[in-house]
């Protein structure tokens, strides 16, 4: 992907993030995740129906990478099953850690972070929203 296009997607999701703001409605699982370097502090809440994410919302204080990654993640995961989500997370982490081949088609817009590992301090920011979703999946499986 062209660097300018990547930047525009990140910036757009940072300045106009998807589903920012929490809800008091019932049926959501809510978690709080903080960056261990003690800056980002984000609440994520998700509603699942029959194992499918039907809504995900977030709020909190976070940097441009973390906020935009949360927004793009929300866009990507709404409508996905837990199993599909787990596969996306797995591929996303492979991309961030530059470990091995990953499925670009599966990640879609999330590929804008494919060079984030060049700034090691920002890797945590890019993976922060997925830490929240992993916690939510664990809680959802627990309550089953």
């Amino acid at each position, binding site marked *: 992907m062209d660097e300018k296009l990547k*930047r525009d997607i990140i910036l757009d999701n940072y300045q106009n993030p998807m589903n920012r703001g929490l809800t008091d409605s019932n049926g959501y699982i809510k978690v709080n995740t903080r960056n261990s370097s003690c800056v*980002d502090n984000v609440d994520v809440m998700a509603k699942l129906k029959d194992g499918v994410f039907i809504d995900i919302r977030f709020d909190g204080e976070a940097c441009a990478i973390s906020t935009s990654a949360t927004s793009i993640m929300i866009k990507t995961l709404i409508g996905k099953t837990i199993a599909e989500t787990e596969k996306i997370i797995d591929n996303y982490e492979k991309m961030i850690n530059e470990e091995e081949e990953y499925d670009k088609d599966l990640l879609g817009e999330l590929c804008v972070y494919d060079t984030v590992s060049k700034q090691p301090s920002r890797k945590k920011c890019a993976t922060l929203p997925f830490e929240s979703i992993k916690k939510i999946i664990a809680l959802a499986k627990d309550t089953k």
Partner: protein
Amino acid sequence: MNREDFSMLENNIIYFDNGATTLKPKPVVNAVIDYYTKYTANAHRGDYNISQIVDSKYEEVRDEVKDFIKASRRDEIVFTKGTTESINTVVFGFMNTYLQEKDEVLITKSEHASNILPWLELAKRKGIVVKFIPLNENHEVTIDNIEKVITSKTKVISLAHVTNVVGDIRPIEEIGKLCKDKNILFVVDAAQSIGHLPIDVVKCNISFLGFSAHKMLGPTGIGVLYGKYELLNKLSPIEYGGGMNSYFESSGELEYKDLPERLEAGTQNIAGVLGMGEAIKYLKKIGLDNIHKYEVELKKYAVTRLKEVPNIKIYNANSNSGIIVFNINKIFSQDLAAFLNHFNICVRAGNHCAKIVKEEINVSNTCRASFYFYNTKEEIDALVDALKKQDKIFDIIL
């Protein structure tokens, strides 16, 4: 000043994170190298020449520290791995028996985690009460405000000499006098002040004081616990083992050494101690008064110049030390730090380990530039120039 002594400054960086750790001048680095290349041996053994050299150099540093903080006895100086260990040793080796349930300890919300969490942990374990001294509109401690919260149950006041976010200098001499009058113990976290301001532990009636060498030109992993002899002598060691005992028998009969060895179990960070000794000598040569004066000059210059930057908010323009905390409106502090990094300017972003100061300054994340004597006005100009390019931030960091 003295920039030529700092090899790190040859790396084309503008280092404004001195509140986190300072750079090390060549004499300090050389002292560490000399220990590892010319006389590597353990201390307190003395069976051969190089071991004697280590022993005497190690103990000379204790004298250096004693003079540096104007303590009255050399055995009031204990080497630790830093401020955190020093404060924890005081809290869990002394205060855990000295304090009783419902006794009150006064701190503030602008303390560093290492002067909050040990007390909160002791509160959980022993039921002591931790109270926060209200701060004034400049987020400073005043004698009036301390007096307002002192009760008959107040047994300890524990404060940073200089705080690491607001950068205010506490009136420790007056607070020490108040503590003396009210029979309260006074614990001082000198991490942010030790390499910047002179201190006199006797004149300030300080009961215990802790600091780290790495924030005053010295190596990491070494620091000091000072305790007034009568108090320090009642502090139970946290660690037991070699170097701190006089003898022990299988019957369980044993005796521990006198101060300070009793509180220095195990092989110590000898290279660190020697580096710290060199750092103290170096600081004495420049003079802490000169350092403070220069830092205040830099701070005033920075405040004046930074006011030219659009959308900037400075949170501690009035504090009289080399720390300046700021944000640019609508830019997250970590993004701003990443942006400045692009210009090789090192600042710290976040809450600076003072996670409840947000209740005082009403913002949880800031950028902090903390100056030292090797910083220059030209470097501040470079910071201002970079911040003026703020509209380019996302082109640069994304």
